[in-house]
């Protein structure tokens, strides 16, 4: 038995060569992968943000009870006591509308917000609870009290974020499946084209006793390269998109309740997952395409 030699250099150079000899098809394949990854990435980032917001809200265990405008200080003090007597309530703090406005303004520099009228803000009780499980129940108890005009339970927000996350996950799942299938199909066709162009060479290889693996590797590497190029391009585009959305959110009123995750803190996840997905799509696509050429 002869000593085996690793032909890595050969496989890679063949793979590269192949990509450039079918430029247009390779370009189409890369574009599909990019589209697939960006859609996947966008929904995943949306889900990640919803997740973050949720856990943040949960850790706060807090909701607001807005007080009837006509209430006097004494009435408010009495209400505060009443609320305090509810089992699950950990603490109650009164925040006047002026304080609320000041607190809000601290985080703002925009003219528009600074000049907001006082009426937008209302006197409120900031209520912390012990047990998050009984959160909804406690909110109901408090809002049933005389003098509580309205409440803003973050529970609603939490629910909203759960919905966003679930919808994003579901939509992403379906879209990813469809786009992955299309990407696979296009990569498979690109590689099939490459294999077809070299069918005589493949026949010669088989005749000389080449193993399936030896014949397959250059094409698999071609597929992996296409997938990787797609992943890197998608990563930078995703970065751009995310930075844009982040900027938009931060400069809008939404930033009072939503503080998005910064791209800088998760870029390696995005890149890693993109690269992995790209490689996987490339490998499967080319492996699938080359099967027919390996028979006998």
């Amino acid at each position, binding site marked *: 038995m002869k000593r085996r030699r690793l032909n890595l250099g050969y496989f890679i150079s063949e793979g590269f060569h192949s990509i450039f000899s079918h430029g247009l098809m390779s370009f189409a394949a890369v574009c599909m992968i990019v589209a697939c990854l960006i859609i996947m990435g966008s929904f995943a980032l949306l889900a990640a943000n919803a997740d973050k917001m949720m856990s943040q809200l949960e850790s706060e265990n807090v909701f607001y009870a807005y007080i009837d405008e006509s209430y006097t200080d004494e009435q408010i003090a009495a209400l505060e006591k009443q609320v305090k007597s509810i089992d699950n309530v950990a603490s109650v703090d009164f925040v006047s509308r002026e304080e609320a406005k000041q607190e809000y303004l601290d985080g703002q520099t925009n003219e528009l917000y600074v000049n907001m009228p006082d009426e937008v803000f209302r006197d409120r009780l900031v209520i912390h609870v012990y047990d998050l499980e009984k959160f909804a129940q406690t909110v109901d108890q408090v809002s049933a009290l005389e003098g509580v005009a309205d409440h803003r339970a973050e529970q609603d927000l939490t629910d909203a974020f759960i919905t966003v996350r679930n919808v994003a996950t579901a939509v992403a799942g379906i879209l990813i499946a469809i786009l992955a299938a299309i990407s696979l199909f296009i990569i498979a066709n690109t590689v099939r084209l490459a294999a077809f162009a070299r069918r005589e060479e493949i026949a*010669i290889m088989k*005749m000389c*006793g080449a*193993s399936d693996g030896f014949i397959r590797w250059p094409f698999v590497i071609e597929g992996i390269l296409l997938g990787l190029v797609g992943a890197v391009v998608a990563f930078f585009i995703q970065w751009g998109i995310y930075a844009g959305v982040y900027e938009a959110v931060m400069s809008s009123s939404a930033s009072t309740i939503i503080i998005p995750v910064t791209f800088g803190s998760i870029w390696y996840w995005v890149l890693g997952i993109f690269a992995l997905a790209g490689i996987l799509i490339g490998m499967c696509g080319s492996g699938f395409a080359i099967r027919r050429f390996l028979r006998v």
Partner: protein
Amino acid sequence: MIRLVDVCKEYNNGTKAIKGLNLKIEDGEFAFLVGPSGSGKSTIIKLLTAEEFATQGRVMVNGYNLNTIKHWQIPKMRRTLGVIFQDFRLIDKKTVWGNLEFAMRIIGATNREMNKRIPYVLDLVGLSDKANVRPTEMSGGEQQRVAIARALVNNPQMIIADEPTGNLDPQRSLEIMTLLERINSMGTTMLVVTHERELVNRFSKRVVTIQNGELISDEQGGYYKL
């Protein structure tokens, strides 16, 4: 070494190309396989290279039982064979050296082995000065000698040639056949398919004649029948 025992081959479209053939070729032998067009000669070659499989009977090649061979063993079996075709089947974009290197790379040879073996086989087929020429710049006879060099380069036990002189003039044909005879005399088993009567009769070799997928004669030092 070749053993065919009661071999039948029926193609998917129902064509019965081989009908109960028995044939034994020992190591080191030189045998011509002759017969009219469509008699099943190429089909036999395909059965020997595991490109097709017998629908009945047993096929043994160089110790491999092709009835039970595993898919992954087929490349190993093929490395014991050198195959030559009428249409040369060289890679036109590679030089002569490149073609031989390609064949050696497939079986995992090292650069050292290539640098030693390739000049040797090029010398054997008389193409030492053509190493850097591309097949498209060569005559048919030269191209076939490159194909022979490629068949030889991995040092096979047996060479199978399907009408190696089909595209060549009588003088080139004689040269090629003489070369094959010389290679055989160095120990490589040789099975040559041809229907060139003159050529076969010039060499006093074993001649296996088939017609309609059946063996009709098998004679040592024989002549082309029919």
